[in-house]
């Protein structure tokens, strides 16, 4: 009987303890001091990093200085560079601390960023500056039936290309002579280039993009836009270091917002990389535009 009573008592005490607390501990132990979002750009003399203190409660960022000393060290030579704080005010009125430094970074150099708090706790990240690339607009094969592919060659060996923007500068008309509607539209071609000897081939599918362009013009305007003229195109290739890779293949903020899901910062969060932008503007040949569905009016095939 005593044994059963003891078991019963223990069971009750166990069950009770599984659900009952008297204290509330909302903060988990966490030592990391900073989140860092920074880029070393070999095509610019000024390099910047937005620094957030990891705080115990959510507050608007105030313009007062933060407890951080930011430096970069060129690991190849040991040369150290101090970064300066600048307080910027965003469009929403909130303040941010953007640290910056002026120096020339060269392809192949490796830098370590250190963000150090006064108690010595620090966040750090390492990046290697990517090599240069060159963009070349190639002649399209206008004889390929049912296709309108505009080729572009990226010469060089970019470690990553996190973003490739293809921008169409367009003018739409409901009918000839009506009020023109100017509209730039951006398409994301990240992940599309195919590796080839000496670089990457990017084929812009004008025909596929046109159907989306037509849909956007059609849905945005009260009057059906039957005439869509492509004035020119801008292609912008973002070249990044080898760390600049989304773990899910695409840069979706709803996935990557989770701290640590896309980060190369030790003892902290965020991403510190190096990269630059190459861009080129052009207008595809008329026959290709016609194939894609764009308005070419009275232009003849040699009117490029």
């Amino acid at each position, binding site marked *: 009987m005593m044994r059963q009573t003891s078991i019963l008592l223990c069971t009750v005490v166990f069950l009770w303890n599984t659900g009952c*607390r008297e204290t*509330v501990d*909302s903060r988990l132990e966490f030592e990391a001091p900073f989140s860092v979002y920074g880029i070393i*750009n070999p095509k610019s003399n000024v390099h910047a990093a937005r620094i957030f203190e990891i705080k115990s409660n959510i507050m608007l960022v105030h313009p007062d200085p933060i407890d951080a000393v930011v430096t970069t060290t060129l690991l190849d030579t040991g040369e150290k560079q101090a970064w300066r704080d600048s307080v910027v005010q965003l469009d929403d009125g909130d303040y941010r601390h953007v640290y*910056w430094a002026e120096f020339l970074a060269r392809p192949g150099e490796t830098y370590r960023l250190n963000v150090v708090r006064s108690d010595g706790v620090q966040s750090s990240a390492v990046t290697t500056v990517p090599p240069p690339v060159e963009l070349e607009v190639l002649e399209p094969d206008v004889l390929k039936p049912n296709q309108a592919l505009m080729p572009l060659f990226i010469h060089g060996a970019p470690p990553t290309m996190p973003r490739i923007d293809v921008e169409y500068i367009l003018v739409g008309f409901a009918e000839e002579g009506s009020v023109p509607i100017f509209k730039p539209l951006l398409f994301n071609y990240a992940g599309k280039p195919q590796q080839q000897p000496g670089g990457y081939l990017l084929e812009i599918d004008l025909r596929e993009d046109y159907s989306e362009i037509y849909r956007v013009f059609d849905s945005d305007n009260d009057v059906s836009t039957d005439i869509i003229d492509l004035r020119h195109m801008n292609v912008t290739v973002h070249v990044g270091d080898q760390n600049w890779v989304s773990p899910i293949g695409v840069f979706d903020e*709803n996935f990557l917002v989770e*701290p640590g899901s896309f980060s190369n910062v030790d003892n902290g969060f*965020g991403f510190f990389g190096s990269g630059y932008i190459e861009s080129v503007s052009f207008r595809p040949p008329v026959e290709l535009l016609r194939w894609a569905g764009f308005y070419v009016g009275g232009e003849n095939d040699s009117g490029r």
Partner: protein
Amino acid sequence: MTLGTLAVTSTTGAEAQTASIRGFVTDTEDGEALAGVNVVLESNTGILRGGSTSSDGIYNLTRIAPGTYVLRVSFVGYTSFSDTLAFRSGQRLTLNIELAATGAELEEIVVEAETETGAARVTAGLQTITPKDMDLLPTPDISGDLASFLTTLPGVVSLGDRGGQLFIRGGEPSHNMVLVDGMYVYQPYHILGFYSAFPSDIIHQADIHTAGYGAPFTGRIASVIDVKSRNGNKHGYAGALAVAPFVSAAQFEGPLIRDRVSFMGSVRQSLVKTVAQQYVQQDMPYTFGDAFAKVHAIISPTSQLSVSGLYTHDRGTIGLESEDRILEEVGWKNAALGLRYVVLPRALPFVIEILLSYSRLETQQGPSDEPVRWSKIQGFQYAANMTSFYERTQWKWGLYWRAPEITAHLGGLFQDLDFGFSRRHKAGLYLEPDFYITSGLKARVTLVGELFPGQEDRGRIESRFRLIWQRGEHEVSAGAGLYHQEVFGLNDRRDATNVFTSWRSAPTEKLSEAIHALAGYRVSPFPWLEVSLEGYYKKISELFIAEWTSYPRFTSRLQRADGKAGGLDLRTEVRLPYFYGYVNYGLSSVRYTSKQLSNELWFGTERLHFRPPHDRRHQLNLVGTTRLNGFDVSARWNFGSGRPYNQVYGFDGFLLLDGVMDLFNAPDEQRVIYGRPFRGILPTYHRLDVTVEREFESKLFTLTAQIGAINVYDRRNLFALDLFTTEHNWQLPIVPTAGLRFDFR
């Protein structure tokens, strides 16, 4: 005085060899239907057949062999009725009976041993309560309310004394179906947790199904609260006015056509902001109120018609405002209008109930004149329910059509949905026979078929069953069933102070489903004691919950989850001449498993298991009421173990570096660095409420005075922890209350 009104018709065909009798049983004083009345037909050799009246007061005894019988009608607290009736072959008698109250219970709180209601009277997940049960509880208002009673039930979890959200046996608030006179009420609870749209003054009875419910309630996966309102006094005018620091109320009823048509209306308005807040050391920026009206008509001795309307409004700010955090108001409004027609057809041997109703709920966040986001669910519902009675079976069958429309404008910070509209039509048909297998053993089998026109999931068939075995003081019951739900409310459960609910349709290819299983035992070892024990298990699949995100804001992105809820409810009710009380204990466990695509990336596992914030492991409610020197003293002690909440590592900013950008100007977002979901446990919760009442009676009126206190020993109970500021958001401190109620008749 006890009266019977007799009408006679004849039948033909198969029924012609036997006779039948049916009718309505009502209260002589006000004409209200009496539910649970025993109706027994005796022959010379003893009891031939018996049954009890439905919530409409309907009884129906069929297949009676020609002959002479004594009909005995009895109900606790009422004088019995008996009459000798001679039945001829093929005869169908309609006998409406009025019973008069004996007044015996007026001097005592509750003395009945035979009762259909009560704190421990739970059978296969169903508990029926009456206004008396609600009025016993101490509340800041002098009148009772359904919400206060519900929070005493084991397995019913509220997140605190505000917010208007009740979780029943593991489900989300929108998984509960709440009906009044057949009308849907989508958000029935007021922003202050003591109150719902249902003051006890308007309630005739409420059936609370916490699991295993039948076919007419298809469409919700957690529970059903089916409220039947009073019809209003058909014989004389009566009413009440009540004033209290939290809520003031007025109620009025009477005949429009004496003995035939009655009306009943009730209006309540909160005074929290203007009165109670003046002496409570806490901001209470809440405004709410409700209005209910009903007209009930006896069309003929065999048919009744009622029209009911309900309106509620709520507005307030929950949470703590700080220098860096501006809180947005939340508000919601319910409106419902319904028609109900009950008829005992002369030519057909069943009871027909026709329901037609329209319900609407508008929820919004932000300023009332220009809300940042809002959602609206509205729609018509039609139903025809038939019940027929045979010697050893009772058959229910029916059909229904529902067409809820959802419109949502989720501007501002919502991630993926700005504006949306959806309509989910469905038509259903059901069959639900009750078999009286042997003496004391009853089984119910339910079959429901539903069609969803124009949707990917075109239809489904669901089955359920209940089994009840009763012998002497023992009752054993069991139930199981499959349920589904097409529309649901979405909340940001990371933040208890964010009670804005956006209604959404389930993605078309999948509906939320639940399998219920329960088993219970009830015993009355003594006339004054009743004990019940009920265990339950629910498996929920395709549960759509808000996607986990580190943005400090609500998201309308959905993630799929499965859930499991299990528990044990123990209820003990004591009914002594000068003391009534009960103890309810609930042990429960709720687990969700989310299947969000990002789980692998974020947590290193495809399936994330967690305890949702309504997983309260232990709940204990002690309620007692007694009469001392003419004063009614009521007390309630409520205990709940801590609920899960999110812990955080800290806060930073997030900038999506998806390319080379200008870091001096690029926009970013504030971010919460959460720990794994719901790993923290809030402190335990307990509170004692006490009220003392005294009635002063005269022939024409009753004046009731009440004083009391909520949270008598001033326990600091946490409502929510503001993770953004670490501020504690406390529930009500000690709150003295006083009220006056004037009832006239």
